[in-house]
């Protein structure tokens, strides 16, 4: 049984957000839901400043606070290291979300069908024709059929993809539906500059293990004791107060 893990090289990341886009298309997540998100972090004061970008998937912690607090065991840790949500068991108490130090959980506040980027019933979006007429009602909206299958050894749990029903929690799955087919997660596969490596962390010879052994490797919020399975390289941990600037900017824009 492999133990999946990921490394993210912050020196390579140029902030193109191809991972964010790939994740959204692959997992059919709704508006405002970023299972993969990219921080833009600024250090220093202009003109003596620099930026870097920091992708943030779910950390799939070994000692996951979200798994510990789930009152019904919907959020669970698999033997291969993945932390997943059982969408058929989740009761929507959102305890996992307040427990997560990385804020990677997204709740389905709306019906997923009405939380897409475009309401496909709308007419005349491209001049004269109706979209549904052009596409014969088939696509769009596109929905990845893999997400309706059950995964895991017992094939009993609905854990893949997003947008299953309102009132349940969802988050990054490391693309469990792709992993079980032998593919890489969508964000990893779509990165143009190979920021990510992904694979079996329990195998010391795997690429991901060798990269994670780099002496610049660190994990986010290590002193929270969550034992994340995502390793960052070639930068240092961002200060949570980097947000102060962001908050100011948001206030002035409003």
């Amino acid at each position: 049984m492999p133990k999946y893990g990921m490394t993210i090289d912050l020196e390579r990341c140029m902030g193109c957000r191809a991972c964010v886009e790939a994740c959204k298309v692959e997992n059919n997540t709704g508006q405002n839901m970023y299972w993969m998100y990219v921080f833009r972090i600024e250090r220093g004061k202009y003109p003596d400043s620099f930026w870097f970008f920091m992708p943030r998937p779910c950390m799939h912690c070994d000692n996951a606070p979200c798994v510990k607090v789930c009152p019904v065991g919907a959020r669970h840790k698999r033997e291969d290291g993945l932390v997943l949500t059982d969408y058929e068991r989740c009761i929507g108490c959102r305890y996992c979300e307040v427990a997560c130090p990385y804020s990677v959980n997204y709740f389905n506040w709306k019906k997923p069908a009405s939380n897409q980027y475009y309401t496909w019933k709308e007419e005349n979006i491209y001049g004269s024709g109706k979209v549904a007429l052009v596409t014969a009602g088939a696509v769009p909206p596109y929905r990845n059929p893999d997400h309706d299958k059950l995964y895991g050894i017992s094939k009993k749990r609905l854990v893949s993809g997003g947008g299953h029903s309102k009132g349940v929690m969802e988050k990054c799955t490391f693309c469990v539906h792709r992993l079980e087919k032998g593919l890489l997660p969508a964000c990893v596969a779509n990165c143009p500059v190979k920021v990510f490596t992904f694979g079996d962390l329990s195998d010391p010879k795997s690429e991901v293990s060798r990269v994670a052994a780099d002496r610049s490797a660190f994990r986010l919020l290590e002193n929270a004791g969550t034992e994340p399975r995502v390793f960052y390289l070639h930068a240092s941990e961002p200060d949570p107060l980097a947000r102060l600037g962001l908050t100011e900017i948001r206030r002035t824009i409003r």
Partner: protein
Amino acid sequence: MSTKTQPVSAWQPRAGAGFYVSAVILLVVLALGLYAYSRQLAEGEIVTGMRSIGTMGGATWGLYISFVVYFIGISFAGITIAALIRLLNLKTLAPLARAAELLTVISLILGALSIVIDLGQPLRGLKNLWLYARPASPFFYTFSLVIAGYLFASLVYLYLAGRADAAALATRGRGPVWLYRLWAAGYEGTAEERERHSRTLWWLALAIIPLLVLAHSTLGVVFGLQVGRPGWFSALQAPAFVILAGVSGIGMLVVIAAILRSVLRLQDRISLDQFKWLSNFLGFLLIAYLYLWGAEISTTAWVSRAEENELLRALISGEYAALFWVTVALLVIPFVILLLQFLTKRYSIPWIVTAGVMVNIAGMTKRYLLVVPSQTYGTLLPYAAGSYSPSWVEYLIILGLFALGILLYMLFVKVFPIVPIHETE
């Protein structure tokens, strides 16, 4: 074994115009709350002001969870008063025993309802919380200890303590006799029966005390264990929850006692003696809570960890400053009132009730200040600060819950004597 008996005929279920007018108003508020909840069920919780923490810039727990804590906190009063009467033999408080027990039962029901209302999938919740219960989650104890254990024990207590009165009312043959018969369940008031009841209630009171402390603590633990939330992660959370529960619970009991006293004209049964005792007890709990809160804030301010400090700044001088200082005032002013009364030995019911109302408002705002800012200003990664303001749906649902609670209380008072006829010693 002696019983102080009042003639049964003295008790009359009063239901004048005031009762019906207030019942209609409360039913309207309850209906509005139900309408709001139907919107939430139909559209999802998008109709609330809550949003996900982090990139969505919101608070995922809002008014509902604040009021779960508030309602369950209120329940502190009943069992504490009952236990004081039974275990410490504080006969002064005996006329308030049933009013307090009823308060416990009703507030626990409201607390349980607010939890269900907060769930994204309430029907699944009612099933899965039992079917897949996981003792590793602090929520498990909120359900098993607070809702199941504590509520059940309080109901049994209320039931047993009321049997003698029910038996007496059943013989009188007026009002809902079937209810009194059912409640009395063959109680005849023999010396042996009274002795057995008294003994059972003593042990039950003793057994409920640890349940009470654990139940309020476990709600504190729901917050106190979260290492990723500055402002929550603290060992003080559990004891502070127990004490603040006492503050708002006793405060609410004072208010209810004063209302019952004037509406039902019970001046001869509920006198200044009970208020004196409650006033001193409330003052003691208040200063204990202020001490715990001070200890918590001074630790945070001294250690000065970046994320804790930012949260503290948001509370003291930032977005939440107005609410924070109002809360401080609503806790300090009642304490000063109660302390002055204690020092001068001159007690006044209006002032004690004022203090009770103030600590209850503080009980709501303090819970809000605990639940919300740690989510909007407490992220450990550099997300921009979030914001949360409750929507009309949340306000209406909370108002509806209050209306439901008051209605239940009024109905009980209408069919059953709220001040015990028999005060079993």
